[in-house]
């Protein structure tokens, strides 16, 4: 087994691992020598975009996070959009309203990774939403129930009118298209429809809300909530290491998702995961940690099998992160 610490000429012919040290700022793509420049441009573009998004302090709306069984979940689609615009992907957990019985595409809520949660709260961009139990008093409740019933009633009336109009226009279309039909007949039919039409309660379309309604709807209360984000202890030095790496990679414009199924900490995407494949599997280790050679071989082999490059990421003492890419390379 040979190891070279210089960028080795990559080859698809398998056999050897090359360790490439990538401590310098932009990430190099060992197998695509022409790309770094493009990547740099793209990164600069992204940074610019981020800077533009950075509204002046105070006007920026915090994302409302609510805890479910101690997991940070986002519920409102505006919040989802906002974190995505900041390059945080998260993971959707719920059934998709449109076609609930499939696992291919899921819907709200969005679960934040611990690193994403921490990044948001450090930037003051997240606020905890009040727990469900903090309801108003009995009188308040009665008021709400009354309001709900009134709303249902008016919705029924309005939908009933809409349904009648719908029917009428269908009738007019049906009777006018074949041609020779007298106006009187049409009017008679319409009249009859007006008389006989009923819109049964069971036909009423109702909404099964995804997010809880109430207090959190107005931006002022959200800004107010920004302050009391509970400080949640995030366990251990390992989390610290992964967070440093996450923040650094995100700062370079990469999109990250968790990489449990690839045996790593993060999957690293060059752009939005909706449009791009992940290029790297990031594995976070403290700088001083010893690595078992077999483990290195295992991750390198796995990475090459899924056509991704394995990155060993170790935060240094000076706030920078050192990256080492691992790749099988050929020796003829």
């Amino acid at each position: 087994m040979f190891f070279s610490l210089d960028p080795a000429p990559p080859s698809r012919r398998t056999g050897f691992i090359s360790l490439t040290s990538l401590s310098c700022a932009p990430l190099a793509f060992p197998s695509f020598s022409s790309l770094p420049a493009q990547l740099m441009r793209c990164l600069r573009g992204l940074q610019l975009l981020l800077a533009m998004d950075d509204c002046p302090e105070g006007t920026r709306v915090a994302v409302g996070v609510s805890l479910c069984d101690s997991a940070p979940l986002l519920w409102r689609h505006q919040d989802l959009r906002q974190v995505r615009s900041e390059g945080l992907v998260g993971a959707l957990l719920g059934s998709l309203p449109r076609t609930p019985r499939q696992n291919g595409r899921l819907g709200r809520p969005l679960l934040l990774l611990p690193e994403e949660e921490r990044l948001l709260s450090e930037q003051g961009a997240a606020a905890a939403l009040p727990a469900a139990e903090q309801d108003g008093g009995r009188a308040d409740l009665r008021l709400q129930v009354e309001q709900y019933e009134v709303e249902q009633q008016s919705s029924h009336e309005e939908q009933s009118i809409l349904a009648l109009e719908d029917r009428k226009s269908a009738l007019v279309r049906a009777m006018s298209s074949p041609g020779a039909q007298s106006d009187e007949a049409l009017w008679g039919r319409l009249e009859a429809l007006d008389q006989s039409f009923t819109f049964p309660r069971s036909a009423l379309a109702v909404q099964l809300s995804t997010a809880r309604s109430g207090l959190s709807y107005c931006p002022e209360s959200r800004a107010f909530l920004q302050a009391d984000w509970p400080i949640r202890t995030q366990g251990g030095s390992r989390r610290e290491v992964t967070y440093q790496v996450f923040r650094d990679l995100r700062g370079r414009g990469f999109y990250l998702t968790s990489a449990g199924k690839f045996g790593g900490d993060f999957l690293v995407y060059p752009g939005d995961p909706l449009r791009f494949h992940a290029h790297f599997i990031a594995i976070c280790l403290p700088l001083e940690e010893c690595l078992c050679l077999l483990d290195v071989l295992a991750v390198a082999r796995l990475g090459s099998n899924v056509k991704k490059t394995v990155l060993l990421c170790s935060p240094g003492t000076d706030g920078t992160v050192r990256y080492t890419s691992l790749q099988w390379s050929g020796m003829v």
Partner: protein
Amino acid sequence: MADQNKTDTAGKLYNEILSPSELFAARSRSHKIPVRGQKDFFPNDSDEQRQRLEQSLNEHWSLVSEERVERLGNLVKGIWIPSDQIVELQSPAGKFWQTMGFSANAKQCLLPEEALYLMECGNLQVFYRDLPLSIQDGYERFLSSKTISLQQYQVFGHLKRLGYVVNRFNPSSEPSPYMRQLNLPQSRDSAGRQLKRKRSTSPTLSSSHTKARESHTERMEEDECSHEGEKKSTQASPETPGVSTATTRSADEGKGRNWWMTDVLPEPGHRSDHSLSSGSSRWDFRSIVFPDLGSREQLSSCLASPDPSLLPEALAVGACDFALWRQRINLRKVNMSSKDWKREEDKLRRGWDVNKDEEVRRCRNWTEYMELMSRREAKRKGRPAHLWNREVTPLHDPREPISTGELLEKISVIKPTNLLEGASRLKGGDEWRICFNVYQADTVADFKKSNPGKPYARMCVCSFDGPVPDLRAIKLLTFQSGDIPVVFAVVDYGDISFYTFKDFQLPLDVFP
């Protein structure tokens, strides 16, 4: 761009309540999911790429922001009861009742995970204090340490969406290993179910749930045992098999309950009194000869009529001509290959019995036998005797014949083991437990909640952050699960992977 965004959000910030006209329009909504195109390898700053990304994102957001809209008539209404952590249905349940829910106090109820899943599917509207709960409320109220965790619900939902039938696993409703060993029918499952759902302690109400499937006798049994079901089940434990068999046998034999499978032999004591009671002892089977029709030796083609004393009265059986029967049976001689012969011989040798030894049989008394033994001992002295004189002796005497397989077994240092070995002696831990029974999707049509049958697998939920189960945990879970595979559902934020640990028998390339 940022400005545009801001005005947009200021206009209808977090307005996720649909207006009546929007609700009405939602009836003719498409149910198609846009296909995701081929992904690009690398962002190249081109307009084309930016457009595609924008389109994908738009599709994504329109999917994700879509609200559930259902006809009121299609919704089942339920009420959340926090004190019991269940949802009680107010209108008749839908099709889902075949695989989900339970009855208690003559009401149809759903477990929180079932209710939440049905809310997400748009089948159920749950009210609390006369107000409808949102999906968010459902997640926050239904999932807790008192019910199931978010991760467990993720696994539940994932499997349900794939079409599996998923039930909570309840260790007390599983037959004990002893019951499994005896092949006892699972008559207690309904009682166990009732115990699990604490709300129905009254036996009369519980019978409404168990329906006509149960005979009258079983219901009576339930009456006496439903309050002390625990006690009863311990009675059937290995310590007192005599007691339980005696009582159940006398009680149930008349009602046609088959407690013993025919291939499981009861203890000798039981057998003897059984045969006595049936009065079969007057037949000495050694003296009753059954004809061997396939025999090579030429029998006369006619069987004499049997001893009339063996037949019931008033039944006469004449001589029987069996030539016709002989034509119908296979009379070909069994051709054994040399290998088969060797195997037969080996079998004989292994089942070696001192009484089969011709020389031993010729001995007429102990003295002669002892003489024979000492003679043989002297003969055996031919082996290197000094090896047997010391504390450490050879594992095997080369003069004794032995098959290769047996020899390998004899000299093996590490004995093979299996997952269940010693598992019954392990004390249970708390950190690993089975959460769900999973039944295959294609059995949904004839699935019965009262008699679900054998699960396809059992699920244990854990996360990538936690430890890998150790051998002890795997042994315990396997033992608890019996012959049904235990699958570990490992949750990694949004992803769920399934793993299972299996026994593996190393093949032995030795014959025989």
